[in-house]
Every structure is written in structure tokens, then in C-alpha cells.
């Protein structure tokens, strides 16, 4: 029988640019698995629903997938804020919820059925910062981040403590809001504070614009960014203005492992553009689940199978497009059992000539 897998992502609305890439990643993975005969002879059937990046919609979609479609597990939702609304539903019904793009703190504290393979900024940013400091001999930085978005704000929090740990002084901290396109006021202020580099917790599109506007103000500082930078969009928009930007992530388009090369080639062939990290993480996520399913004997009783999957997942070790992967149990909070975060190595990249290459 088919294994029904729920996918609840933002396919319309402003978060769709991530949601659509994620959906593509899943589709590619499912096709790959099914082409090889599925898992233990069972094909994977994706049930895709649009949660619009809204919390009420996420709850509705989760309920629909869990109660009506009776899916084995749910992937998603796209945004951390939606996850805080929807994940409790999954946990209450003892269904695995697997986030591939939720990076906020506390997601996996919502219950033991919460999993994610999205790397947390806390695992990546300190490494990136350290590498940047070494490379450019940085003493003081300015920081810029989006303050009305859970992802960019938590990235900022991590940067802040990493910078404090590494005793880098901060000359100026500036923020912007979703939808802003003009960052010159902040950048002019940053320019006046004369930092050695600019630390930026932003998503790729904003980052690209910020970089372009920085250059147009006559500033030459390197940028240090997080996961958000890891997208071909950065170069589509900023091209080589983005040179000397450092970014750390487990996944790199330059990673030449066989799995990754095949992933990138297949993705391009199927969707006509280059994958980003969101697609890669989604691709891996479904493969991780497939690995786990290989060890599970499905009974046909959905409740039992869901729990069996949950019990099988933590033990999975996997090497995919994003490299070596394992789960790491999150620290329990308030006496509540917690779920599982990702345990992965970050690769630090530097932008050169309009693409990221591994920083040596």
C-alpha cells in the first residue's frame, strides 16, 4: 500500500518562495524513492496542502492531514511561527511532525513527536564568525537584522552571543522590517561607525539588496551571514558585489559528494533552476524518513504505525545532500518531553566571482 506523507507548506503568500522550494525537494525525493520501488515495496504518496504561512491555516491543514488524510507523518510547516501553532496538534495525536525549515528556539520543545533537520543557527553561526575573524582579521563589526521575523531575529540572538564570546566589539546594531527594500539609512549609519565587517541575519533576497546598497554607498566591508544567505538568489541579485561574503551551512552547492551532485543535477533537470538549502533539507528529510521506514513493519493501524515511525527515527544516521546527518535529542524544558534537533557539521563558504566556494 502507499505510504501517505503529509506536506504542509506555504505555497502561496510571501513565504511561498521557501515553501515552493521545499515542496520541490520533497517531490524530487519521493520520485527518487518510488523509482527504486519505494520503501519495502510501498510507494510514497505525498499529500500536499498549502498553509499560506498563517497560523490558523497551519492548524487547519495539520488537522486535515492527520484526521482526514490519515497521513503517517506531516512535514512542515514552513515558518517557525506556524510551527508553534500546528506542532502541538501533531504531538497531541502522536503523529510525527518533521520540520525542514523551522529554526527557531523551542520548536522541538513542543513534544517528543517533533523532529527537524533544519540546522539551528546556534550550530553554524559561531563557526562562521570564527572563520571570518581569522580570514579578515576582524576586530569590530556592525550588525543588521530583520527584527520582525522569528528566523532573522533568532539568528541575530545567536550572532550576538557568538560575537560576545569571541570578544568582537559591535560598532552598531540596526534592524529592518519585512518588505523593506531601502536599507540606506541603516547602512549610512553603519558606515559612519566604520566596522571591519557587517554581520547580517537576513534572508537571501534582502541580503543581496543590502549588499548592493552597501556597495553603492562606497563601502567595501565583507559580510558574514547565516543559513539565510545560502541560496542562488544571492548571486542572481547581487552577482559579484557579494564577493567576500562568508556563510556557514551544512549544505553547499559546491559540495562535491555524489549524493549532492546528483541531487543538484536532478533538481535542475526537473524544475529548471538551481536548488537552495530549503530544497536540499526537504530532500534529505524525506530520505531520512524513508530510511527509518525501512526498519519499521507497517501494521496498517495508523496509530501504531505513527508511533513506530517515531520510535525508529532517532536512531537513523544518514548521509545526504546536506552531508552527514544524525538526530540529537533536544533538552527537555518545563518537565515536558522534547523532540529531536539536527546534528550536522557546518561548512564555511566564501563568495567569489558570483558563487560560494568552500573557504579553505
Amino acid at each position, binding site marked *: 500500500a502507499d505510504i501517505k506523507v503529509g506536506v504542509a507548506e506555504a505555497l502561496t503568500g510571501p513565504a511561498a518562495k521557501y515553501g515552493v522550494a521545499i515542496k520541490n525537494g520533497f517531490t524530487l525525493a519521493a520520485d527518487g524513492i518510488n523509482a527504486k520501488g519505494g520503501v519495502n515495496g510501498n510507494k510514497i504518496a505525498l499529500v500536499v496542502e498549502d498553509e499560506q504561512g498563517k497560523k490558523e491555516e497551519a492548524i487547519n491543514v495539520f488537522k486535515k492531514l492527520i484526521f482526514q488524510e490519515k497521513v503517517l507523518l506531516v512535514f512542515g510547516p514552513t515558518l517557525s511561527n506556524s510551527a508553534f501553532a500546528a506542532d502541538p496538534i501533531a504531538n497531541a495525536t502522536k503523529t510525527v511532525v518533521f520540520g525542514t525549515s523551522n529554526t527557531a528556539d523551542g520548536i522541538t520543545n513542543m513534544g517528543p513527536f517533533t523532529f527537524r533537520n533544519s540546522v539551528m543557527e546556534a550550530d553554524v553561526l559561531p563557526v562562521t564568525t570564527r572563520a571570518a575573524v581569522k580570514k579578515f582579521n576582524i576586530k569590530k563589526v556592525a550588525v543588521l537584522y530583520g527584527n520582525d521575523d522569528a528566523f532573522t531575529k533568532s539568528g541575530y540572538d545567536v550572532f550576538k552571543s557568538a560575537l560576545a564570546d569571541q570578544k568582537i566589539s559591535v560598532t552598531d546594531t540596526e534592524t529592518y522590517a519585512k518588505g523593506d527594500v531601502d536599507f540606506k539609512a541603516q547602512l549610512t549609519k553603519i558606515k559612519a561607525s566604520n566596522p571591519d565587517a557587517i554581520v547580517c541575519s537576513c534572508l537571501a533576497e534582502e541580503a543581496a539588496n543590502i549588499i548592493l546598497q552597501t556597495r553603492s554607498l*562606497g563601502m567595501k566591508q565583507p559580510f558574514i551571514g547565516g543559513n539565510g544567505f545560502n541560496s542562488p538568489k544571492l548571486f542572481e541579485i547581487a552577482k559579484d558585489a557579494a564577493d567576500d561574503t562568508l556563510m556557514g551551512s551544512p549544505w553547499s552547492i559546491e559540495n562535491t559528494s555524489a549524493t549532492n551532485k546528483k541531487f543538484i543535477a536532478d533538481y535542475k533537470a526537473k524544475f529548471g533552476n538551481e536548488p537552495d538549502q530549503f530544497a536540499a533539507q526537504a530532500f534529505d528529510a524525506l530520505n531520512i524518513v524513508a530510511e527509518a521506514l525501512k526498519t519499521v513493519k507497517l501494521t496498517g493501524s495508523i496509530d501504531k504505525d505513527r508511533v513506530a515511525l517515531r520510535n525508529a527515527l532517532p536512531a537513523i544516521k544518514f548521509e545526504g545532500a546536506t552531508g552527514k546527518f544524525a538526530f540529537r535529542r533536544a533538552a527537555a524544558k518545563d518537565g515536558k518531553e522534547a523532540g529531536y534537533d539536527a546534528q550536522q557539521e557546518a561548512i564555511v563558504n566564501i563568495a567569489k566571482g558570483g558563487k560560494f566556494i568552500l573557504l579553505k
Partner: protein
Amino acid sequence: MFEQQLINALSLGSVYALFALGFTLVFGVLGVINLAHGAIFMLGSYVALLLVNQFQMSLWLAMLIAMLTCGVIGVIVDFLVLRPLRKRNAPHLAPMIATIGVAIMITNVAQGFFGAENKRFPFGTIPEESFTVGNLHLTAVQLAIVLISFALMVVLLIIMRRTQLGRALRAIAESPKAAYLLGINVEGLFLFTSFAAAALGGAAGVLVGLSFNAISPFMGQPMLHKGIAVIILGGMGDIRGALIGGLFLGFAEVMSVAYLSSDFRDAVAFGLLFVILLVRPSGMFGKILERKA
């Protein structure tokens, strides 16, 4: 730094003003808060992008066609949506809500067509480098936006104040019935206004798309918020108000970043708006005219 911030404020303010001109025109004449103006603005930049990308068209030609396309869409929206509502004597909120529907549709269809990601004009469409005087920087597009928005305002002002067309438009704005009695082709001018406003919106879209490299189906929404603030600040339907209001908002935002904190940029801008309305209940240029009895 202050001088650079002045330039930043001027250029940001001009962007707002440029967007607001078409927006305020529709309100001024049709009395409709056209919440689809943001969507039309967005469409303008996509049309030009498509032409430049697919047909290697020169930017200026692409911009012209984008304006025409948007204008035609404006006319279609007026003809299919706003006009029937006028005919049915709809209550004043109905057209605004209908334009929300239009905005949702256009945005959703644009996403289906062009995808959700941000796009930009190809490199080299316009000169990238910025003018540098001493320590001050201004890009060519920024300069163009400043000049164009001032020029457009002057042109529109002259039309509205000095020509019979302008008087007719203002007559319609106040009372279509009275305008009819004067022999004014009211419906024709409504269509004309919708065309002009949408074309202006399209032009704004192209320029903003060029200047910020963030063309996306959702680019109209934040601009719409600011646009509403601007036209209210300036006085609804007032052409001067759109420019002054835009510049005011630009300055408020930039200066609050420069001298307060970027955390409160929007709060300062909207808070100021709030305060200004308390002092001048009809905006800076709004006419306070009420015969009491």
C-alpha cells in the same frame, strides 16, 4: 553622515511620492481607495522585466509598454468593477473592498506566472555605479526617481489647477451629478483617470523595481501601506500632498533610523502621522471646509 541621510531621505521620499501620485489621483477623482494600486504597481515592474528579459527590449520602450499595459488593466478594472458599482450607487466602502479582491487576484495570478521569488532586471539595464560627490553617493535610478516624481507632480498640478480638464476632474470628484449637468463626460473621465493612475503606478513599479532589485508578487503590499499613509498625510486626493507627504514619510523614516533607532522606524513614522492628523484632521493639504448648515 547627515548629508548622506538627507539624500537617503529625499530618494526614499520620492519613491513614496511616486507611488502615491497615481494612488491619490484615483482617490481624488473617483473617491475610491484603490487597494489594487499596489498590485498594478507590481505588475508594471514584471511587464517591463519580461520585455527586457524575453525580447531584449530597451528599458525605456519596456517602461512605456508597461505603463500602457497597466493603464489598460486600470481601465479594465474600472470598467468591470468600479463602474458597475457606481451605477448601482454602492455604499462608499464597497469599491474599496472590491479592489481588495482585484489585488488578491492579480497577486495570486502573478505568483502563478512568475513564481514567488524576488527577481531583478538584468545587470547592465541601467548604469550600476553611483554618482559620488565627496563622501556622498546617489545612484542614477535614485536621481531619476527624484526628478521624475517632482516633474510628474508639477505636470499633474498644472493640469489639475490650470486646465479645463483639471477643473472637470475636480468637479467629478465633488459631485458626478453636478458634473453631468455641466455636460462633462463623467464616465469617460473616470476611465481616463483610471488609465492615467494605473499607468503612473506601472511607471513607479518599473522604477522601484530597477532601484531596489526586489521584484516580487508581493512588492506592492508594503508600498501600499506607505502609500495610504502618504496620501492621508498629504490630504486625500491632493497632488501636492502626495509629494510632500511622501517626502515627509521618507524623512521621518530615515531620520528616525539615523537619530533614534531603526527598531522604531515604522512606529515613529506612523506615530507622527497619528499626531499630524490630530493637529490637522484632513492632512497637510486637505481642505477643511464644512458649511455648518
